[in-house]
């Protein structure tokens, strides 16, 4: 409006400015004369205030001035109305915005520090209501100290300054921006947002970055990140030290900027490959550190994809393996030394893998085998010799040799370790194998080492010794056999002698028995018949013949009776019938009875509880004869008046004792003289049947004779009469 110029037209029909269009534009409106004031806003025409007359009119200055005043007043009113309306509309907008800011709020404050708008959840969060703020000044709502701070800020806003700050309230974080509200009548807008979650996320990110940084700084290796163009964006402290560049000297720079050309080329080549590969690579890179030592590093390079999935960064982690490298070189040195030793030892040594393929062998092995096998040749497994044998000379298949069996997991006995190795020239060597399996951590056999000891010379010496021993042994054996034969012959002759004497006794006894039977059957019976007949004759003739005939007959009867008694005695001596018929004890009893009555000596016969079983006739006879002989000895030499005879079993033997109370044996020399005493006869009888005889005597206190006659188990059943 200010720049607008009032137009005054007194007659539009004649006025040159309007005449051309008079008929078309002015007549229809009846505007013969008019005045108009343009209404302008910001130098732009917006509207015009128009006053017209249908006849020409000479507008007065007062009329023009009045119109202009009206226009001015009207426009101002319209503008005010418009601004107020816009203000209300923007207030509405602010409120909508305020409500849509989560946990936030919008405040509009005028120059008098009065809240025009106070909208949004944050108001409630501060314990205030919209109505408590809107229409009230800051100082009316808040205590003096904070309100002074707030007014200070608002004053700056009114001066055109914008500011933002964070505040904490009730554990929440708020971000606030204050700015002058442009296009207005001097108000400030205050926008507040709850940024607690964002702050927390930022803190988490910060912590995570801190963690990453810590991790990287403590990584015992170098770590770095480059962008896709090769510029460093991160390096840990170790990397910075190794690259001899830090911070701004490193970030944004490339390998070419930092390292010598050949090193840079090496790094870039590997970066390129890691990117091409997509999954990353592991390589060994070399770099001379500032200490001047060439360091080897095991480097892992890998791409880090960006949001679009394509590699955005390339990262590297490197570990210094210089020491390991040096250790490997030292190991290689020691291997070399071992190899020399391996070749120099005077024992054949070789190794096979788990399949039996020959891996290594030393010079001594080649000498023993007489040839050099091919390593890893499937046709030469387990042993480098073409032909091997068992100690007895039988051919040994290679898959049965000790090495093969050890690889097969067997355990070998010492005697199974000896083999014969034949060289190509046909010479055989005795060898002791010492295969040793090598196992992995799971206990599986992965290889084996075999030491072969050539024992040919020892074997030969042993063989010579063995031959000597054999010869010696055979001599000793021969001599022993001769001695044994002599002993046996002696033994046999002794046995023959014994059995001969026994047989002699038996034959004698049989003979005696035969004679005794003859005496009984012929002589005895005939005498009995003769006696009987003589008795009859005597009875018949007694009264018929004279005294002399009777006397002769009586003599004859006495003679026959004597003869019968004699025959009975002889018979009894030769072979007592009671012995055959009733056994040893009965025969002894009978014998002792007749002895007692014949010699008038007191005899006690001690029998034991268990009866003596029947023995062979020769044994029974032997015992009876010894008893008879002992009794006769007592009568002949002892001058005794009491004899005790006892017979009983002791195990598998009969023990007969004859004890008298006589004078005892005065002279052993004369007692043992053949013929003088019965001792020798008794002893011979006892020994002839395998028994023995003991004689003990105390002068003045009698003699004791003890015969021990063994019998074998149950006596054989022999026909007794």
């Amino acid at each position: 409006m200010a720049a607008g110029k009032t137009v005054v037209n007194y007659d539009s029909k004649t006025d040159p400015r309007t005449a051309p269009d008079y008929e078309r534009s002015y007549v229809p409106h009846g505007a013969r004369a008019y005045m108009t004031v343009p209404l302008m806003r910001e130098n732009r025409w917006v509207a015009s205030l128009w006053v017209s007359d249908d006849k020409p009119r000479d507008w007065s200055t007062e009329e023009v001035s009045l119109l202009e005043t009206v226009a001015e007043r009207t426009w101002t009113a319209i503008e005010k109305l418009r601004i107020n309306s816009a203000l209300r509309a923007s207030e509405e907008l602010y409120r909508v915005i305020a409500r849509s800011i989560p946990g936030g709020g919008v405040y509009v404050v005028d120059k008098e520090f009065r809240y025009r708008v106070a909208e949004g959840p944050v108001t409630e969060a501060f314990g205030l209501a919209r109505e408590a703020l809107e229409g009230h000044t800051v100082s009316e709502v808040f205590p003096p100290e904070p309100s002074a701070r707030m007014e200070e800020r608002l004053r700056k806003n009114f001066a055109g300054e914008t500011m933002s700050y964070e505040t904490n309230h009730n554990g929440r974080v708020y971000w606030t921006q204050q700015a002058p509200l442009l296009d207005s009548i001097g108000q400030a807008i205050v926008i507040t947002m709850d940024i607690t979650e964002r702050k927390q996320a930022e803190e988490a990110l910060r912590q995570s970055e801190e963690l990453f940084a810590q991790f990287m700084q403590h990584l015992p290796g170098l770590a770095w990140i480059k962008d896709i163009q090769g510029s460093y964006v991160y390096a840990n402290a170790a990397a910075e030290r190794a690259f001899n560049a830090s911070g701004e000297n490193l970030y944004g720079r490339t390998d070419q900027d930092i390292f010598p050309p050949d090193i840079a080329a090496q790094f870039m080549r590997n970066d390129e490959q890691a990117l091409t590969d997509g999954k990353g690579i592991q390589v060994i890179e070399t770099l001379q550190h500032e200490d001047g030592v060439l360091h080897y590093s095991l480097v892992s390079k890998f791409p880090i994809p960006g949001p679009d999935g394509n590699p955005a960064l390339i990262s590297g982690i490197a570990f210094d393996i210089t020491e390991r490298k040096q250790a490997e070189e030292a190991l290689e040195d020691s291997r070399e030394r071992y190899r020399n030793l391996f070749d120099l030892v005077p024992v054949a040594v070789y190794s096979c893998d788990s399949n039996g393929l020959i891996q290594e062998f030393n010079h001594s092995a080649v000498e023993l085998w007489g040839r050099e096998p091919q390593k890893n040749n499937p046709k030469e497994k387990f042993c480098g010799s073409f032909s091997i044998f068992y100690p007895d000379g039988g051919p040994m298949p290679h898959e049965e040799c000790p090495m093969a069996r050890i690889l097969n997991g067997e355990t070998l006995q010492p005697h199974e370790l000896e083999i014969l190795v034949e060289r190509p020239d046909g010479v055989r060597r005795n060898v002791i194998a010492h295969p040793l399996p090598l196992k992995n951590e799971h206990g599986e056999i992965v290889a084996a080492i075999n030491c072969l000891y050539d024992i040919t010379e020892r074997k030969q010496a042993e063989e010579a010794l063995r031959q000597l021993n054999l010869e010696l042994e055979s001599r000793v054996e021969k001599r022993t056999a001769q001695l044994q034969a002599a002993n046996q012959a002696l033994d046999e002759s002794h046995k023959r002698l014994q059995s001969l004497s026994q047989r002699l006794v038996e034959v004698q006894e049989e003979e005696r028995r035969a004679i005794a039977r003859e005496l009984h059957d012929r002589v005895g019976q005939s005498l009995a018949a003769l006696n009987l007949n003589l008795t009859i004759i005597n009875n018949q003739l007694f009264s018929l013949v004279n005294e002399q005939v009777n006397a002769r007959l009586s003599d004859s009867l006495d003679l026959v009776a004597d003869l019968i008694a004699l025959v009975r005695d002889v018979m009894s001596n030769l072979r007592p019938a009671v012995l055959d018929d009733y056994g040893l004890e009965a025969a002894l009893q009978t014998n002792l009875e007749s002895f007692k009555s014949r010699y008038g000596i007191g005899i006690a016969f001690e029998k034991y509880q268990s009866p003596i079983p029947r023995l062979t006739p020769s044994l029974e006879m032997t015992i009876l004869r010894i008893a008879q002989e002992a009794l006769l000895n007592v009568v002949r030499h002892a001058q005794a008046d009491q004899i005790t005879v006892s017979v009983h079993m002791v195990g598998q033997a009969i023990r007969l004792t004859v004890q008298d109370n006589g004078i005892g044996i005065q002279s052993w020399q004369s007692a043992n003289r053949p013929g003088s005493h019965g001792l020798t006869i008794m002893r011979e009888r006892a020994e002839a049947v395998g028994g023995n005889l003991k004689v003990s005597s105390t002068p003045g206190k009698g003699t004791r004779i003890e015969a021990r006659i063994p019998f074998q188990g149950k006596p054989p059943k022999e026909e007794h009469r």
Partner: protein
Amino acid sequence: MITVLLADDHTVVREGLRYILEAPGDIQITAAVSNGKEAVERAFLNCPDVAVIDISMPVMDGIEATRYICEQCPHTHIVMLSMYDSPEYVQRALKAGALGYVLKDAAGNELVEAVRTLYKGKRYFSPRIAEIVKHL
């Protein structure tokens, strides 16, 4: 009349004994045999009052024959004729069932008396044997 079975393997003895036994007239020899088996058979056949049996005979001896006869003919009383005077023989004879035991060398004088004694159901032993029997 006393019926008697006579058993002795010696013919002269057997005939002598027959003569002695038959001479008094009250004894009749119903059988005279030469071994134990025949004695048993004849005894079974006619069960004599007394049997005079020699202790030692072939085929079957007198002791065994005595045992059989005593079992089968309890009325026949047996007098054992023997050359032996050992207690064992006497004991065996008595155990087998004999009521009398006469030694052969005294038979000529004692046998008739022995037969008559046994016939009465009493026992008879030669004097030497009577001594032994006392101690059994």
